[in-house]
């Protein structure tokens, strides 16, 4: 006997809203805080209607101070709540970086588990929405480098809801990156109520034996488009959506690259010190002898994310990814 699960067709940002609503209902200790998240429902409407439904004590409009409310959330988490902080744009997280780096990420280790910080920091990230400067950063590697915090980045509405719920229930701090470029790009059936997607597990989106393409967040649709174009040229592509950036799903990477022997990593962020380099290290550690070609990386450039007149040139495109796919095929 199967139980019918009711679903709703939601965009990614609506799925985020649905996850927050679900958890506010589910757990009394969940509390949201950030700038403009209450009456205004967040600049992207991710928290729309939640203050109305759960009150000003659960959904808190804070003063404009990333370090202040992130720090306050750390104190709340130490004292038993599960705060979910919204940073309006990842590019505005830097004032709170010290709080995350020196306190949230270390509290458990410093106190041998006596004090813990089960908080979530939500941050829309990435370029491609014609935003003003500083609004388009994709600096996830600053956080994947930091021990003590997990980094999650969904690319679909289903995953966004399941991963966000898992992040809220996680006993450790989680940075939850929301690709604003695909916030409303498409809809998907999302189950009502509570479900989780496991943190630390990637997802195979497409099967192919020739090349592995690894992507996350807003680069997933770019990778998929490139894979479709490659298919027309007779190249069969395995596409992996990482979904969690720390800890990486080593097994899904190894299984695929051992099968194909050729890999392209697509990363929106700057090249140097980026996560693609860690994925390369995983391939090196697990699958060196299977490789038929050097791994290609398609990334943003080592320049500040530019003003939007240039962002189409900055961002990896399906054409650049396809070029890389052909390069590893023809090596």
């Amino acid at each position, binding site marked *: 006997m199967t139980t019918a699960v009711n679903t709703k067709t939601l965009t990614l940002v609506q799925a985020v809203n649905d996850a927050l609503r679900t958890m506010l209902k589910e757990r009394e200790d969940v509390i949201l805080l950030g700038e403009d998240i209450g009456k205004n429902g967040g600049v992207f409407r991710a928290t729309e209607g939640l203050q109305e439904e759960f009150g000003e004590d659960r959904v808190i409009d804070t003063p404009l101070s990333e370090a202040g409310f992130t720090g306050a959330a750390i104190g709340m988490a130490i004292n038993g709540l599960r705060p979910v902080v919204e940073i309006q744009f990842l590019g505005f997280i830097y004032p709170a970086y010290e709080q995350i780096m020196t306190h949230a990420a270390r509290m458990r*280790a410093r106190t041998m588990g006596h004090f813990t910080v089960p908080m979530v920091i939500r941050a829309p990230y990435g370029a491609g929405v014609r935003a003003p400067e500083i609004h388009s950063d994709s600096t996830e590697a600053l956080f994947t480098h930091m021990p003590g915090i997990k980094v999650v980045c969904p690319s679909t509405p289903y995953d966004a809801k399941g991963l966000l719920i898992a992040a809220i229930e996680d*006993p450790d701090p989680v940075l939850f990156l929301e690709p604003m470029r695909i916030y409303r790009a498409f809809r998907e059936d999302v189950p009502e109520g509570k479900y989780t997607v496991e943190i630390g597990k990637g997802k195979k989106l497409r099967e192919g034996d020739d090349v592995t393409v690894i992507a996350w967040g807003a680069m997933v649709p770019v990778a998929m488009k490139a894979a479709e174009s490659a298919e027309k040229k007779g190249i069969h592509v395995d596409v992996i959506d990482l979904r969690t950036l720390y800890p990486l799903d080593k097994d899904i990477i190894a299984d695929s690259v051992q099968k194909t022997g050729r890999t392209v990593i697509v990363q929106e962020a700057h090249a140097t010190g980026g996560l693609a380099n860690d994925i390369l290290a995983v391939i090196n550690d697990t699958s060196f002898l299977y490789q038929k070609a050097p791994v290609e990386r398609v990334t943003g450039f080592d320049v500040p994310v530019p003003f939007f007149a240039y962002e189409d040139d900055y961002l990896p495109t399906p054409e650049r990814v396809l070029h890389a796919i052909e390069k590893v095929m023809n090596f």
Partner: protein
Amino acid sequence: MEFQFPIIQIMNEQGCIVRSEYREQITKELVMTMYRHLIRTRMFDRKCVSLQRQGRIGTYVPYEGQEACQVGSALALRNGDWMFPTYRDHGAMMTFGRSLTQTLLYWKGRTEGCVPSEGKKIVPPSVPIATQLPHAAGAAYVEKRKGTKNAVIVYFGDGATSEGDFHEGLNFASVFNLPVVFFNQNNQYAISVPITRQMKSKTIAQKALAYDIPGIRIDGNDIFAVYFETQQALERARNGGGPTLIEAVTWRYGAHTTSDDPSKYRDQEESKRRRETTDPIKRIERFMQQEGWWDEQWMNQVQKEVSVEIEQAVAEMERYPKANPADMFDYVFAQPTWTIAEQKNAYFQWKRGIEG
């Protein structure tokens, strides 16, 4: 502005009570408790400096001269309250209930030194400057939400008032009217930079005006002023009156840490003079003499007991089993990630190979 925020004294430098309304509350029992803690913190501090010089602990942060600030404020706390200290506030932490051994372990570079004693809500010392102020506001938010009568005290130095987090913490606490006492120990130097290069305002207390909360300036070497003013601020917090900013004006005699030389930036003649005039322990001793509470035998006894307690703690610290490298891997996450598990495993395999 200084006139609006005069330094509050209850006991002057000569050990005389200048605010008679407190006279009855200053009982012999209270004074003896205070004296014992003052002696304990001073003897401990001196012992630590000496242990550092002998290489038995690492770099140490002394607080000599600031004992009244730390002991007086910590004695005003109740058991359910929270303490958010800095690295210079181990005097306050020990007074509130952290064991001497744990304090020593911290300076010995051991993580065990951050674990608070059972039942004590003492958060590990904040090393970055002023970052613990928002945490205190957050913890206070939860106490208010739960409807408890617990309050939060957070310590910081004068240099911290230049940091953004100072203002963000005060602002957050003031907007939400939270039960938190912001306790500033103005020892007048942020490492080597004097307060006049830290801020143009004449007092730290006046900064409370911007947040529409009480700002109180007290003589930080007068333990009675520290104790009673902190107690009042905590009471206000418990009863829904919101946060208070207390500026306790004091002076550290020695270095910022055992790694710097205070004679390069701080007038050591001034420190010498202050040892005779404003010293917090000398002052309470003068008071006790005037009251006829001076009991040489009891004081010797206190010193002896404290000395034994410190020696036992030092012995315990030195007897502590060797630091286990597994501890460094095991507490980063609730469940170790594969990266950490692999690194731990590889390291121990290598170590066993070498040692085996």
